[in-house]
């Protein structure tokens, strides 16, 4: 009987949260589902294994860059230069590995990540020391790093494009886990999450705290398993016409690792807690003894590192690096992805998973519209409308809320 009362009060609190506007990912996931249904109706190729794999891979860059931005959006800041930062990372990796330098891929990747992390730290240093709005400093970065990128790429003398031949970097996007390894990976992930959910429930229950009812946890596990199964089936189905290609692209586990690390930091560590606090009320954090500038610098640095990983995925997918990379647009679309996913531009609200959902939506629109045969111009307008719709729904939902973010 007590369990039922507890569950009822938990449920009431959940519903209250929904009413207060904190509906979580539900409205956005419904939106994504609606898009998927629409595109599938218009062109049944949409839900084919090859297109869906393509879609997941296309979304990886946006997801990663968006996760990079979320570090800053949580603080109420922004980094407009992350796109070109990732481009510089990509060019460092490709140039070191495939031109006259012939570095081992592992070292090239490490140096590329070191460079992007340092650029992120530089942005943070300027914002904190000069006490200028991050918008301005990173806008200057956007322009400046674009110049650096064009200079570095053109200096290779290959006509503004450096092709990627190194197998390892190329395989990040284009190579796959074996179908068996795909199963193992997905099952391992599901098992890990289920076990940790059950264990934390058990710890809470034994401490006498109000816990999520067992059936809710079970439902979550079942949904996770269902999603995992769908993902495995998509990737393990043969998606090539002339040869056989199966298995999960390496990019997916890479993105999931970044997602896991980022979420762990934000949810389970002090640093993450302080980032939320600074975004919510930086003066309160300061008075509580938090070294605000240290965590701001940390966020800029982590954003740079994440942008570096995004850059590697980018050059892997492109098969090289070009001086014409439209990184200004890409970074804005990544910010849009974070916001569509539910992250607030004003700080204090957001999660790494928002980048995943938002990135999928941002990638679905051009993918689906391309299948229907719509021009690029229409795709841009459609993305704009989706962004407006997502933010409006979110804002209207929160208007009834007592949380004023």
């Amino acid at each position, binding site marked *: 009987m007590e369990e039922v009362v507890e569950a009822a009060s938990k449920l009431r*609190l959940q519903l209250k949260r929904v009413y*207060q506007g904190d509906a979580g990912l539900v409205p956005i996931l419904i939106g994504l589902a609606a898009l998927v249904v629409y595109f599938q109706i218009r062109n049944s190729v949409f839900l084919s294994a090859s297109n869906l794999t393509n879609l997941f891979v296309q979304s990886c860059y946006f997801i990663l860059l968006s996760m990079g931005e979320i570090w800053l959006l949580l603080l109420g800041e922004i980094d407009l230069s992350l796109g070109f930062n990732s481009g510089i990372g990509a060019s460092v990796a490709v140039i070191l590995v495939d031109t006259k330098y012939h570095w081992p891929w592992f070292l090239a990747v490490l140096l590329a990540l070191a460079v992007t992390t340092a650029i992120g730290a530089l942005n943070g240093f300027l914002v904190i020391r000069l006490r200028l709005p991050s918008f301005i400093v990173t806008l200057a970065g956007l322009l400046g790093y674009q110049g650096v990128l064009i200079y570095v790429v053109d200096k290779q003398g290959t006509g503004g494009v450096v092709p990627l031949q190194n197998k390892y970097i190329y395989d990040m996007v284009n190579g796959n886990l074996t179908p068996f390894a795909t199963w193992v990976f997905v099952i391992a992930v599901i098992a890990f999450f289920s076990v940790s959910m059950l264990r934390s429930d058990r*710890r*809470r229950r034994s*401490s*006498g*705290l*109000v816990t999520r009812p067992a059936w809710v946890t079970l439902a979550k596990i079942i949904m996770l398993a269902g999603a995992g199964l769908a993902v495995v089936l998509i990737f393990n189905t043969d998606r090539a016409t002339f040869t056989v290609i199966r298995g999960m692209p390496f990019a997916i586990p890479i993105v999931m690792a970044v997602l896991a690390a980022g979420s*762990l930091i934000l949810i*389970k*560590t*002090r640093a993450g*807690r302080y980032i*939320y*606090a600074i*975004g*919510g*009320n930086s*003066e*309160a*954090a*300061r*008075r*509580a*003894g*938090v070294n605000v500038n240290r965590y701001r610098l940390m966020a800029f640095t982590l954003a740079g590192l994440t942008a570096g990983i995004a850059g590697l995925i980018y050059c892997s997918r492109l098969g090289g690096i070009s001086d014409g990379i439209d990184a200004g647009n890409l970074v804005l679309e990544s910010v849009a992805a974070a916001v569509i996913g539910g992250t607030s531009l004003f700080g*204090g*609200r957001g999660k790494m998973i928002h980048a995943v959902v938002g990135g999928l939506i941002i990638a679905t629109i051009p993918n689906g519209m391309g299948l229907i045969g719509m021009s690029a111009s229409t795709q841009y307008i459609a993305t704009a409308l989706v962004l407006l719709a997502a933010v409006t729904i979110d804002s209207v939902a929160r208007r009834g809320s*007592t*949380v*004023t*973010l």
Partner: protein
Amino acid sequence: MEIAPEPNSSATSADGRDEPRGSGADPSPTQHLLSLRGISKNFGPVQALQDCDLDVPAGQVTALIGDNGAGKSTLIKCISGIYAPSSGQIYWNGKEVHVHTPRDAADLGIATVYQDLALCDNLDIVENMYLGREESRYGLLDEIKMELATKKTLADLSVTTVQSVRQLVGSLSGGQRQAVAVARAVMRESQLVIMDEPTAALGVSQTKLVLELIRTLADRGIAVLVISHNLMDVFSVADRIAVMYLGAIVHQGPIASYDTTSAVELITTGESKSIASSRLSASL
């Protein structure tokens, strides 16, 4: 009722000044938890605090009253490490201390509840209570420990109106937010809790909640320093009053030596006909 200022005893006064110590503070700072002597603060040409002496004993509620702009918040911020005094000494349990940062104040055992409460609306009650001093287990936050301790603290303070300690602070009422801010101070095993206008924005029942909380704290042996301009609240909860006027503390003493009239006179003019203002008449 006349109060003569305490006799000056330059042998024990900290800086050996000869002129009589104003404002009725004890000449020897050793017997109180917190004593300020000669605290001044200027911001460029603006003299915000002039030579303030204040005693705050443990286990009692000291009310710091004064009109707007008298310097009450500035004095508080000097104690809690937000500002550094331009001159003067701070004594903690009789020993001189230097409070340069909020952390220094927290390390001493001083907790401040600011007028704007300094809470993060986007975090829940547990997260706010532990902000800056989270408990961890193997390097990761120990949510269960923090949640249990938060529930216990709120229960000890008889704060029963809060439904769940996992509610976002932004969704609480004014009185509940104040209670959370106070509970945060209590959980840190603070010896001195400073509250800046705790009832300013609250309704009747919420005010009652906060005043009872203040009384509970003092009854536990904690020194409470409350800034308030609501004399009704002051007279219902305070054990001592200190009055500020134009940046100086013009009078302080046990509450029995004041009534509403004399308090208002001291606040608005810096002196009172019914109480000899010790600045002017040291020899009376």
